[in-house]
């Protein structure tokens, strides 16, 4: 039977078992929206801004194992998605973005709502396509899902001109796909894995350093099993939190610019680093020259060969899917692993570093943001999905909310996109309808996508917005305080709305909290009494609170500024 391009798009989504699409209609996608209207298998969530559609699809993917899907129109619809696509690209999130395009004959003529979608998105996608023939449509969408979800995942854009969605052809969805130019490696090289085990046995001061790759390949169980067998310390990157239980004794905390004293020291002084799905980025190892001063051996497991030896020289590269490689590694370790007895001394050293209690903070008369995070952890029993925006609040959440499970910590690690928190909450709830979702944000970040409170009302999404309101761009202010002689250039946020009234005007619940003793009751009220409502908790926090420890830009990982130093 001949069906239209628009119907083919929807049929493809159904074949891919897509349950939910985030989008916003417009001229070039009207045929697709019409086809969407005529079925009820794929649910559409109407956002208030295309950026939020992509962020929500991104979080849908991060919080489940599924590919997120967004649908937008041509021109401004597309340009509004670029921040969201770049955010997903930096964190390797599998996502398919379907964009409308002006009719084929109009392309290149500066038509109304035309832009060069493939050109604009090229640097921030894993791949993109412009469909020029309706007969290619199904295969292209199949390829898009395949490319997005396999190898090192990433966003894929499919640009479809309006006339293609009107033309008809036979529909057949390919069951499998073969691409001569794209065959990602899955299994690691066994010889290299054996070499890795040998080096791990020799290690006197080992550390397991893991990142987002563990989360993306669903390898948290294997990682946990391996780490327990080896009894080595584990540190996670910001993207890797939840890959290893944060409450476990072997966990030394997050490392990097705002990592714990013990994690950063252990990473720096380790003689063997087992890097798993992490990429030694600038926020993680600080100054690479300083990091390079210590002699050590590095084993690096990553699905992307270009991540290996990019910033730090690697001795044993293992290219492969993290879960598969860890499976192999576990088999070898099960066959008898003799840890170096000197590891016991290493643990003593780590416990000494841990004794510094680098996350300790002073209670003052104001609400401390760290305290809010600790209470949030208690009230939610550590089981919430926590989305965050970008800034101090993001670091406080990462430091004080102890993630024991993967895919619970949803934030923009690579691109550092302010405004993701609320749409991320929407995506999480669409993928996990019964979950408790806390959006940890600040009064600056939340305003970058605040219009989505309307979407939350429409679909009944009971996100708890934890607004750490210090009336400032906190992280900018912190840098200005420390490195720009307190010249607070443009870091004040004045003329703030009354967030309680704002939430209420959207039909939600708003609570303002100004005293430390009111923090816990307010959280309980939000999560228990108003379980099914979106609650905007406006915490007026200490404006002087800073994030510690801190490795200043250009400094070495061990050159931390601690709260106690000030």
């Amino acid at each position, binding site marked *: 039977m001949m069906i239209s391009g628009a119907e083919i798009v929807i049929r493809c989504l159904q074949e891919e078992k897509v349950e939910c699409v985030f989008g916003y209609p417009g001229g070039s996608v009207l045929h697709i929206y019409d086809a969407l209207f005529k079925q009820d298998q794929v649910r559409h969530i109407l956002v208030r801004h295309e950026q939020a559609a992509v962020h929500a699809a991104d979080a849908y993917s991060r919080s489940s194992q599924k590919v997120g899907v967004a649908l937008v129109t041509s021109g401004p619809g597309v340009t509004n998605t670029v921040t969201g696509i770049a955010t997903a690209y930096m964190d390797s999130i599998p996502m398919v973005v379907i964009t409308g395009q002006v009719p084929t004959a109009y392309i290149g003529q500066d038509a109304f709502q035309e832009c060069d979608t*493939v*050109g604009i998105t*090229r*640097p921030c996608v*894993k*791949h993109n396509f*412009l469909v020029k023939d309706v007969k290619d449509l199904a295969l292209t969408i199949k390829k898009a899902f395949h*490319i997005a979800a396999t190898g*090192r995942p990433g966003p894929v854009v499919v640009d479809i001109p309006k006339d293609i969605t009107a033309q008809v052809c036979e529909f057949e969805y390919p069951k499998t796909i073969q*691409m*001569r*130019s*794209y065959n990602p490696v899955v299994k690691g090289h066994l010889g290299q894995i054996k070499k890795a085990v040998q080096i791990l046995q020799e290690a006197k001061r080992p550390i397991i350093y893991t990142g987002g790759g563990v989360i993306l390949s669903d390898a948290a169980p294997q990682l946990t099993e391996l780490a327990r067998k080896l009894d080595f310390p584990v540190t996670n990157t910001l993207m890797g939190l939840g890959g290893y239980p944060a409450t476990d004794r072997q966990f030394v905390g997050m490392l990097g610019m705002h990592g714990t004293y013990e994690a950063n020291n252990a990473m720096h002084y380790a003689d063997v680093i087992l890097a798993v799905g992490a990429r030694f980025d600038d926020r993680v190892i600080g100054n690479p020259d300083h990091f390079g001063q210590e002699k050590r051996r590095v084993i690096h497991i990553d699905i*992307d*060969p*270009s991540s290996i*030896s*990019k910033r730090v020289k690697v001795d044993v590269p293992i290219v492969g899917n993290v879960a598969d490689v860890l499976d192999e590694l576990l088999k070898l370790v099960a066959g008898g692993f003799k840890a170096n007895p000197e590891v016991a001394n290493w643990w003593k050293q780590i416990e000494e570093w841990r004794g510094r209690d680098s996350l300790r903070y002073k209670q003052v008369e104001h609400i401390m943001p760290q305290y809010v995070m600790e209470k949030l952890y208690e009230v939610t029993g550590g089981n919430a999905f926590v989305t965050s925006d970008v800034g101090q609040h993001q670091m406080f959440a990462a430091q004080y909310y102890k993630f024991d499970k993967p895919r619970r910590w949803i934030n923009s690690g690579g691109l550092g996109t302010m405004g993701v928190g609320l749409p991320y909450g929407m995506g999480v709830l669409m993928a996990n309808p019964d979950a408790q979702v806390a959006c940890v944000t600040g009064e600056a970040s939340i305003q970058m996508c605040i219009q989505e409170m309307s979407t939350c009302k429409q679909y009944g999404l009971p996100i708890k917005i934890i607004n750490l309101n210090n009336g400032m761009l906190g992280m900018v202010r912190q840098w200005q305080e420390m490195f720009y002689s307190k010249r607070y250039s443009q870091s004040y946020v004045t003329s703030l709305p009354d967030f309680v009234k704002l939430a209420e005007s959207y039909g939600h619940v708003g609570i303002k909290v100004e005293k430390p003793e009111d923090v816990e009751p307010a959280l309980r009220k939000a999560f228990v009494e108003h379980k099914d409502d979106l609650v905007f908790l406006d915490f007026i926090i200490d404006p002087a609170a800073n994030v510690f420890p801190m490795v200043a830009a250009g400094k070495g990982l061990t050159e931390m500024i601690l709260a106690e130093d000030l």
Partner: protein
Amino acid sequence: MRHIISILIENESGALSRVAGLFSARGYNIESLTVAPTEDPSLSRMTILTRGSDEVLEQITKQLNKLIDVVKVVDLSEAAHVERELMLIKVRATGKDREEMKRMADIFRGRIIDVTESTYVIELTGASSKLDSFIAGLDAGLILETVRTGVCGIGRGDRILKV
């Protein structure tokens, strides 16, 4: 160091801009780039002349391999290979220079492929350094126009780049 990268890439629209975009986005340099379809019209072969340390070259090859349309990548300069570049150069050829131009073209085994009363167009093929020496050997004032294809290259003997 100087490297010649050969790439087999799907002959799709936009393939060239993916490669060029990768080089500019990551700050790699391109000294020359040539591209044309192969005997299999669904594939293009691209030759890029670039410079960089071993680490940079490793990243360039890895990043190129990551592009979805790229089928194969080799660094030709890693082993025995032949490289050629074609130049068309238009020179003033009047009076005593006319004879001199002919002689120079012969010495470099170039061919004169267009003749007017006052100009020659000389076609010259060889390694880039040979083309450079030819230009250096001429009186700069006599050169009217040059156009070079950029380097293309192929491995010697059994080194074959094919799908």
